[in-house]
Each structure stands twice: as C-alpha cells, then as structure tokens.
C-alpha cells in the first residue's frame, strides 16, 4: 500500500512540531506503515550521526577576542559615566574583601599588618578580575546550566535559583578568588543593576543577615547550611534584603 501522508507531515512528526492531536493520528499511522517506520528510523539515525560527528564548529578564540576589542573601542569612557563592568566587579570584589577582612582578620591582625595585607589583596583581586572578568563566566538564565557550570569548577555544591518573577533575574555566574580561596559568584539583575552574590563553604553555624555599606556599595552577608553568602551591589539596601529573603526562603 502506498503511503499517502506527505513528507512534511512525517518530518514535522519527527521534529515534534505537530500539534498533540496530529501527532497522535500520525503515530497511529506509523504503527501500520512500514515505509514511514523505516524513514523515521533513518531520520533518527541521520540526526544522531549529525550530532555525534563533531560537525558543530565552535568559534575560534580569536573571533570573540577581536569582537570584544572592537566593542571596547565603541564605548569610550566618558566623564561621569558608570565604570566599565570589570571595574565594577573589581570594586565589588574589593569591597567584599574589605568586609570579609573586617569581620575575620581584624581581631588577629594589628592595624598596620591588616592595611598592608589588604592593600596587597586588593591589588591582586583587581588584576585577577581583569583576567577572569565578569564576561568569562557563564551567561545564562538557566538555573541548572549555571549550577552545573559553577560546580564543575568548584568542589562544593550550591543552590542556584532564578528569581526573575520577583524582579531578580539570574544573569549567570563565575568563579572568583577571594582570600586565596575559590568562591562561586552568582550574578543577578535587579532594576537595571547587577548584584553579585559570592558563595563559599563555611563551618560556622547559620547566621541572620548582617549588612553594611562602603562608598556607594551595599552588602548583605549571611550563613546558611554550611555556606556563607555575601550579596554586593549598588542597588538600594532593601533590594539586597529582598534578594536575601528570596534565597533564604527558597532553601538556600
């Protein structure tokens, strides 16, 4: 018996592009039509082979480098303009460092040592953030993709949630080095501004949030489930607290 279904229908069925009803009807047809059955097996084989044959050509690194370079020359720094992203990242990281150092180091170190050590760390951090920068991390709204990417690079598990519905859209993540250890950094956008949430393992017990500010930046720090979180941004302090509440109540 000659199959009178059109080719487009068969391919749409194969590509999951049919409506549920049409797919059901065509599925019933396939059970009885040897020709369509064989063609579907072939399509599956072809599709699988195409995907497994390393035909996808990732871009050479020089392409991205060149585009970024040209991009840089298109955005000249202006007086009074907001700083470039990496400067912002460096500033946020430096601020975090100040915050961490203040909480952790000040009892142990004299003021002089503290200042020297801190200055050194800040310079290092600044240079590192130039190298690793915000842009070399993963850029994605997908919780799982960001989680997998960050966890592949770190030795601890962390919760990654997108709160786009509440006005905090996950932008991606990266890995930074603070005080000589690797920390996960999640990036959220809130009302047109970016928030960095630094996360690292801790042995200390859970704590309620502490907050503070440094120049124009705000931070909120808390511990939960053997992880320490520090959100840093130039958003309004209430914005950071809101993000803390979202993360805290989502099981973070």
């Amino acid at each position: 018996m000659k199959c009178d279904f059109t080719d487009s229908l068969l391919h749409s069925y194969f590509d999951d592009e049919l409506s549920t009803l049409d797919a059901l009807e065509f599925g019933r047809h396939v059970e009885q039509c040897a020709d369509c059955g064989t063609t579907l097996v072939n399509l599956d084989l072809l599709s699988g082979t195409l995907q497994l044959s390393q035909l996808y050509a990732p871009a050479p690194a020089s392409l991205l480098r060149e585009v970024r370079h040209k991009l840089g020359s298109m955005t000249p720094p202006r007086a009074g303009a907001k700083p470039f992203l990496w400067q912002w990242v460096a500033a946020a990281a430096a601020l975090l460092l100040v915050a961490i150092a203040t909480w952790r180091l000040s009892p142990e170190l004299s003021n002089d040592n503290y200042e020297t050590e801190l200055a050194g760390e800040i310079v290092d951090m600044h240079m590192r953030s130039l190298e690793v920068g915000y842009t070399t991390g993963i850029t994605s709204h997908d919780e799982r993709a960001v989680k997998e990417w960050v966890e592949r690079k770190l030795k601890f598990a962390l919760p990654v949630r997108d709160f786009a519905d509440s006005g905090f859209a996950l932008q991606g993540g990266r890995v930074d080095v603070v005080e000589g250890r690797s920390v996960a950094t999640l990036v959220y956008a809130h009302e047109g501004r970016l928030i960095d949430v630094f996360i690292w393992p801790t042995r200390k017990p859970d704590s309620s949030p502490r907050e503070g500010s440094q120049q124009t930046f705000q931070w909120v720090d808390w511990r939960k489930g053997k992880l320490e979180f520090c959100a840093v941004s130039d958003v309004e302090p209430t914005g950071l607290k809101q993000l803390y509440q979202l993360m805290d109540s989502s099981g973070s």
Partner: protein
Amino acid sequence: MSEFDLEDRVRFEQLVLPHVDAAFNLARWLLRGRADAEDVAQEALLRACRYFPGFHGGDPRAWVLQIVRNTCYTWLEKNRPTELAVEFNEKFHQQNHATPERLAISGDDRERLTRALEALPPRFREVLILRELEGCSYKEIAAITSIPIGTVMSSLARARRQLCFFLRDPSRKEANREV
C-alpha cells in the same frame, strides 16, 4: 562606527556574545570554510553591535543568526555568485520517493557527512544546520531565514532526503555539486 553606551554593551555581552559559537558555526557551514567564516562572522557581530540599540526583546540567538545569515549571503553574492545559483536536483527528489531502505551509516561518517552537507545548495544546507546542529524550531528557522514555515518544512524534508541518498550511495555523493 557609532557609539553605544555602557548599558548597551553590558546587554550585548549578556544577550548576544553567548551565541558566538552559533554565529560562527552557521557562517562556517554557509561559506564552507573556517577562515572566511571567521571574517564574515566578525563582520556580522559588529553589524549586530550597530543594530543592537534597536533590538528590543525577542530571541537574541535568532536575531543574531539572522544578521549572520544575511551577511553570509551578501558575501556569497559578491565573492561566489555561482554558489547561490545552485538549484536542488529534482532527480534525487524523485528517486527518493521509492520505497525507503534502511541506512547503514558507519566508518568515516564525519568526512562523508561534511561532504554531503557541503554538496547541498546553501538554502537547504542552512535549514538542516539550524535544525540538526543548532536545535532551532521551525518557527525560529523561519525567522532567521525569512522564509515561510511551510518552505522550512519542505526544505528540511528535501535536504534530509538528499543527505540520506548520499549516505546510502557514497559513489553518488559528488554528483550534485555544481559549484
């Protein structure tokens, strides 16, 4: 070159640059060569920068791939006009209406597939690449290529049929190449 502000740049980094691989891959298959693909993909991405302030929402991957695709076609028209004139060989189309037989793909698949793909006319090749390698939906392919969705379906069906034909009978794989 027009200036775009920091906010544009941040958004461009977040929305468009994650699709650099997709941009390069499409250019590589449309132009059939890495060196040309890198040049043209770069041109397309810089063009995307210039258009970006006018991009308001929508799917950034489809948006940038559309620009890449158009830039590739402009390049082909200028540098290899004959390539765009290649039409689909209807002979294969008819032959393949015969009762299908099982494919046997094995061995040097990558080489065979590359040649079979490159032998397809560009308009069929792009649909297949977007569907099979980029995972685009019919709707996305229609948006990227500016062709109606019905034509996307039929082009995809014909491209696949021809690819199957090449793979079934390796001795015929160069037959349709008329560059």
